[in-house]
């Protein structure tokens, strides 16, 4: 019998025998957090061999960063005041520096019976749909924006996230900015308080929402660009309307004049339109946790969001002196032309020049 027992135990620790020839993880920065930029960070880390990234959600990333069990964090949302206080308390008074790394669009795909084209919807209309104020596809407001499209008299199914998510936060922040009533009823958060009197279906993660849109007729949802593409929903992603000043040639009395005019323009989510959203004015040494949703930049897709790498302002005080150089090398690679060129293929948009310059300048402030 001794043999059986011994064999059982031996089989059990066979895996443990592989510990010999351990390789060291030293020199590779370890990061965790937001799932939104996962594809980009994973690719950059794999290509550069400078870092390893694990996607576990923004809040998880912030918690790890605060607890000092990773070298850098990643989040779609800035730290809350409680999180900031905890960071200062636990990491020797070190602060957080936000490094925007890329831009991404949140698409609003639709799946309507008999309509096989991109719908045009104003931000306020989308807000009314997700707040429950508009519940039929042939609502006058939708019809007015989509002349020539035969919209059915069917009620709308809204597909939303089942889990807490940065994508929900970006989407609802945008809707709250354009439609104040949305902020007070649904709210801008990772877990919005969706209306209960209309049809709302939840799906886990981005693919779950994409599947929900595909599975349900007369539905609308919000999905990141990569999963919208994978699910074949990119061609049905709404062109979002916003009010913008446009120049227009006007011919009067034989002369051509250029007049400025406020007009609703509808912008679809493409790499170029998403990238434009980063064209914001920045003050010198301004913290870079700026919100890019509802960007006023001309031609910018309005539901655009950025995501940040979280870095200790002072590695030594944070008790992480050993990882400072790994993190700085990692970030320099993230901002390199080579890395930023990878983004469109991953369905993200590169940072515009001003934002990238500001981020590189901020690198020098890391102690």
């Amino acid at each position, binding site marked *: 019998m001794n*043999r*059986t*027992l011994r*064999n*059982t*135990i031996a*089989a*059990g*620790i066979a*895996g*443990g025998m*592989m*510990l010999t*020839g*351990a*390789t*060291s*993880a030293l020199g*590779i920065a*370890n990061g965790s957090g937001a799932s939104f930029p*996962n*594809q*980009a960070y*994973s*690719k950059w*880390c*794999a290509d550069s*061999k400078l870092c*390893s990234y*694990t*996607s*576990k*959600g*923004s809040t*998880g990333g912030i918690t790890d960063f605060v*607890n000092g*069990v990773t070298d850098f964090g990643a989040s779609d949302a800035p730290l*809350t005041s*409680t999180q900031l206080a905890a960071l200062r308390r636990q990491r020797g008074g070190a602060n957080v520096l936000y490094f925007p790394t890329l831009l991404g669009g949140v698409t609003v795909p639709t799946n309507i019976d008999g309509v096989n084209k991109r719908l045009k919807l104003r931000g306020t209309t989308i807000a009314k749909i997700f707040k429950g104020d508009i519940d039929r596809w042939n609502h006058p407001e939708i019809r007015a924006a989509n002349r020539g499209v035969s919209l059915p008299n069917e009620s709308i199914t809204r597909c939303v996230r*089942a*889990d*807490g998510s940065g994508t929900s936060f970006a989407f609802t922040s945008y809707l709250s900015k354009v439609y104040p009533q949305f*902020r007070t009823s*649904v*709210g801008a*958060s990772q*877990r919005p*308080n969706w209306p209960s009197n209309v049809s709302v279906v939840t799906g*886990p*993660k981005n*693919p*779950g929402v*994409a*599947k*929900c849109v595909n*599975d349900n007729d007369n539905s609308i949802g919000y999905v990141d660009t*990569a*999963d919208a593409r*994978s*699910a074949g929903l990119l061609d049905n992603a709404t062109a979002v309307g916003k009010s913008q000043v446009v120049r227009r040639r006007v011919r009067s009395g034989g002369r051509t004049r250029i007049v400025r005019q406020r007009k609703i323009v509808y912008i679809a989510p493409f790499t170029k339109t998403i990238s434009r959203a980063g064209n914001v004015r920045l003050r010198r040494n301004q913290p870079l946790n700026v919100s890019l949703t509802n960007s006023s930049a001309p031609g910018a897709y309005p539901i655009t969001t950025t995501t940040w790498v979280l870095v200790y302002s002072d590695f030594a005080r944070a008790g992480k002196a050993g990882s400072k150089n790994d993190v700085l090398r990692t970030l320099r690679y993230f901002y390199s032309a080579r890395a930023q060129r990878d983004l469109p293929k991953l369905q993200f948009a590169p940072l515009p020049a001003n934002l990238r310059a500001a981020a590189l300048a901020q690198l020098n402030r890391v102690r």
Partner: protein
Amino acid sequence: MSPPPATAAGAEPEKGSALGRSERRHPITRPVASRVADQAYVWLCTLAALAAMAGVGYLIYKTAAETGEVWSTYGIWGFLTGTEWIPQPADGQPVFGALPFIYGTLVTSAIAMALAVPLAIGVALATTVFLPRVLRGPVSAVVDLLAAVPSVVYGLWGILVLVPTLRPALEWVSEHNGPLGFLAGPVTSGSYLLSGMVLAIMVLPIIAAITREVFLTVPVDQQEGAYALGATRWEMVRDAMLPWARSGIVGASALGLGRAVGETIALALLLGNVPNVGGSLLGPGSTLAGVIALEFGEAFDVHLAALTALALVLFVIAFIINALARLLVARSSGGGESLVRRALTNRGLAGLGTIRAREQEGGDGLDEPADEPGIVEPPRRLAGLPSVSTSRRVRSYAAEGTVYLALALALIPLGAILYEIVRNGLPAISWDFLTTEQPPDAFTPGGGISNALVGTLIMMGIATAVAAPLGVLTALFINDVAAGLGPGFRRIGDAVGFFVDILLGVPSVVVGLTVYLALVLAMGNFSALAGGIALGIIMFPIVVRATDEILRLVPEAQREAAEALGAPRWRTTVSVVLPAAAPGILTGTMLALARASGEAAPLLFTSLGWQFLSTDVLAPIAALPQLIFANMVDIQTPESTELAWGAAFVLVAMILFLNLIARLIARFTRSLEVR
């Protein structure tokens, strides 16, 4: 032939023998070394049990300590009966009510158990008694294999295959049973009924495997006795096997229920995640474990406390379920005794019994080296004997038919899932797939799983090294040591068993969080070691429960025989009890390993993940289930889906391989035993 001790715990004949054991010790003088070894054995088991208790206590304490804010704000009753769950309201205070999740957990688990337990008993009977000998091994291996399928695969299979297949049927049901209310439409893609069905498929292999092991411990002479009395196959099963195995079946079901109650990701994918109370079984709902898994990643402050409070509620539910299961076992323990009497008083059987008994004289079955010992074939019919009455024969055939029906019902979905894994996973497999690191992103074809495969192997090794010895020692304490120390200690043993059982229903993410708080923060970084320990904690209760069930069924006569020969306690355990229980212990350990190997959620908190090949136990490391999850649930591209299916295939194949090795070891040592 002595009446079978249907339940060893608390049954009277055992108490007597425990006393007898201590009396017997006096007249024999033993060498000091032997006494020291005995003491060491007792202490080792006691220490293991104490460690287990401390572990469970720490887990509960850590969990409870996080929840103070919830009780002070909402009150216990208010929290438990609240029907609204609004963690981040647009304005005002968040609202947390647990009732929809308690309801969802109970309903889905009830559906799952109602479907799985009968089917599992059917499968276990088929693979021990009814199927032709050559088919028993392969069929039970297939069933075992399904215990290893990661739950995310079950969830995806449910969404991709089961929902579309059953939708027309469910729609028909909702139209024709509308007035019944609980089966009213509309049929949503996620529903209680579908979730319960998938859960049933998930827990079936666990229940079936343990039940089979329990059936295999039914003493051969007992079965032969039944046949000797002229019993048909079904009558033998009903009178000789089921009463003996009842407590084991309840134990196996408790294991299955633990998995059902604690299941997260499959339900997150399938149930629709709408906090509902009441409503149609065809509508969406939400469960405790499901909401914890879905919201944990992005929760903080009160929300986090409320989720942890839900975990505490889950502890309590597991506690209540276990208490009920134990009551059930205690109440049914009298049933076994009447076997012989009932058989003898059966009409026309008495005379036959005498003839058959004489016929069988000479071999008592126990030392017959059958290649699969434990179950005997019914004897061939002798000429000139009174034939079995038609009604009994019909009943036997009906029972046999039912067993085959259960087997078929169980094998169809199990086969469908395996088919799906093989169909999607096999094309991805190549040498490069196993030896290349994961691809840089989900859009790049190629890449492999080497970092995740090595990580999973290392963590499974650590987990087994933690859970298997500790689990077996704890089970020995419950079953042997505590009972031997006296009636008071027996109760302590029962209490230990009870607390360990509570661990069964703990959602794995809570285990991950506890290890994060206790180990990762103390060490200052994520590590394979922390991941292995978390998986070990998940394995531990399964090992204890499975070992305990098997140890109970080791015939008391064997122990007594060893002690009568003057063997010290530890010697009896090592040479008699453990060999008899070894196959069951191996099965239990394999089931535990299979369950743990598919866990992704706790690893995010413990081993985190690593994009490169690493074998450093003190550094972060990758794992297969995380890779599957990240490439099937987080994002879905054609490339990532192929990678994920390939990884699922490898994970299942790995468990199959380990299972085969375990079975070979069991068979090998068994044949040594006979010699």
